[in-house]
């Protein structure tokens, strides 16, 4: 029975891990991670260091440090250049990652994918003029299509365009053969001419036919019927707890749960974070509690399963020398949210005693942090700090300098410690029984 369950889990995880589209999405998001972190830190710097708005807490408002305000354009530009072009970045990255999987490394591929995605966008934008009147501007590309709101459609468009393009190029039926006297780079341009043209036209035609049939653009339809419901599920408390639970269950079977589920949750939680970040930059109310940094701060702090709590529990209550030795070794890693020495060293993997608190702790911690955020003690997450940032400091940075968030994160580790205690005591008894 246990083997059957394990086989099923491994097969499902294996299928998810090796699936080419999911692998391309995961690699693309990993490449995008530094861009997002730079963008969010620039928001923090431009608000906390360089903001010269009177009455706003900022270093530039301290007498003698007003020169810091002059650095504001640099951080604002870096923030704008990163956070507002995430969707464009993801289209290009997915196309190239997937293309490499098919052995196609044409420079035209990312441009074709981008063209296909742009063909699904509309070129009018509405907004309010300075006098408050509604204005419609034509022949512009709204940033809705280039920032995190366009991530989901961008992913679909990029995958579809790459699949069509690669199949057409590989079939070789649309090649235009040039005489030998034509230079190879010129000949290559003609070889990929029809596949590129057909790819963009097919995607554009699908968008046009959809709009004619439903009266709604494909972009708006995907956003309304796929992205929004999925976002509502994953950014809701029950949906998030389910996600955290699935991730830790996979870990207890020796599978990197975060990597397996990442392709599903990352676009959604990242979009939620981007909304928070934009609201923080604009000085308006932060809309979402659950976002990418919330996960790093309260579900995977000191490592998946909040194993920092386990280290404290082992150091205080364990009578097993092997556990104590591994806990001592794992402590420096846990300070940077790395827990492989524990998961594979104790091990937690395939260990029914420690697997239970490993699955419970992140859910307990996330529940506590959610409640603290709801009552306003813990600030909402507006900056995406690197996941290796030490506990306490990480929540402080991610919340834009909120002390309550840092305190909440430390309490989360203590809660995990409480959850782990009975199971560490059981493992003591287990050891005694084994010795007898």
């Amino acid at each position, binding site marked *: 029975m246990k*083997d059957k369950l*394990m*086989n099923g889990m*491994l097969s499902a*995880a*294996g299928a998810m*891990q*090796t699936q080419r589209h999911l*692998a391309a999405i*995961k*690699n*693309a998001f*990993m*490449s*995008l*991670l*530094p*861009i997002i972190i*730079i963008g969010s830190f*620039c928001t923090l710097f431009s608000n906390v260091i360089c903001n010269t708005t009177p009455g706003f807490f900022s270093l530039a408002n301290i007498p003698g440090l007003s020169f810091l305000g002059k650095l504001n*354009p*640099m*951080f*604002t*530009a*870096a923030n*704008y*250049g*990163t956070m*507002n*072009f995430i969707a*464009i*970045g993801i289209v*290009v*990255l997915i196309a*190239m*990652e997937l293309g*490499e999987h098919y052995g196609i*490394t044409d420079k035209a591929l*990312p441009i074709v994918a981008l063209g296909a995605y742009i063909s699904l966008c509309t070129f009018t934008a509405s907004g309010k003029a300075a006098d408050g009147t509604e204005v419609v501007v034509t022949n512009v590309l709204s940033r809705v299509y280039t920032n995190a709101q366009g991530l989901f459609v961008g992913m679909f468009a990029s995958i579809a365009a790459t699949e069509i393009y690669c199949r057409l190029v590989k079939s070789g039926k649309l090649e235009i053969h040039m005489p030998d006297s034509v230079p190879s780079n010129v000949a290559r341009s003609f070889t990929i001419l029809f596949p590129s043209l057909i790819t963009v036209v097919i995607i554009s035609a699908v968008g046009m036919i959809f709009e004619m049939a439903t009266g709604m653009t494909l972009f708006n339809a995907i956003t309304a019927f796929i992205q929004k419901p999925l976002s509502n599920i994953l950014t809701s408390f029950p949906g998030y707890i389910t996600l955290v639970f699935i991730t830790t269950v996979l870990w207890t*079977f*020796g*599978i*990197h749960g975060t*990597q397996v589920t990442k392709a599903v949750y990352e676009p959604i939680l990242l979009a939620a974070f981007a909304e928070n970040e934009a609201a923080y930059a604009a000085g308006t109310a932060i809309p979402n509690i659950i976002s990418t940094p919330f996960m790093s701060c309260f579900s995977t702090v000191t490592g998946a399963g909040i194993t920092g709590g386990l280290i404290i529990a082992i150091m205080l209550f364990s009578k097993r020398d092997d556990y104590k030795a591994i806990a001592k070794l794992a402590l420096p890693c846990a300070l940077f949210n790395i827990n492989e020495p524990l998961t594979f060293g104790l091990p937690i993997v395939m260990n029914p005693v420690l697997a239970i608190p490993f699955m419970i702790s992140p859910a307990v911690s996330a529940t506590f942090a959610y409640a603290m955020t709801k009552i306003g003690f813990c600030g909402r997450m507006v900056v995406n700090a*690197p*996941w*290796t940032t030490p506990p306490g400091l990480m929540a402080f940075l991610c919340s834009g300098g909120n002390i309550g968030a840092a305190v909440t994160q430390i309490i989360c580790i203590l809660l995990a410690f409480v959850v782990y205690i009975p199971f560490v005591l059981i493992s003591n008894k287990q050891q005694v029984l084994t010795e007898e």
Partner: protein
Amino acid sequence: MSLTKRGGDLNMKEKQELQVTDVFTKSRIFTYLWIVFCPPYGLYRVLSPSSEFRRPEKWVWTMIVICTLVTFVKLIITG
């Protein structure tokens, strides 16, 4: 195939994918800082032959730096 071997194979596949440690090497972190404080030199580091950046990343960072520079110039001009 034994369960342990299958689990091990899966983790090997995961290790072959792009990891956080791959995108946050010392050299890359310096490049990210240069991109914020001096985008042209940051871009030079991204595109240089000895760069650790992969082909898709070079494309995206080039786009990002161009957008950043255009926005920076616009902010300087418009105040």
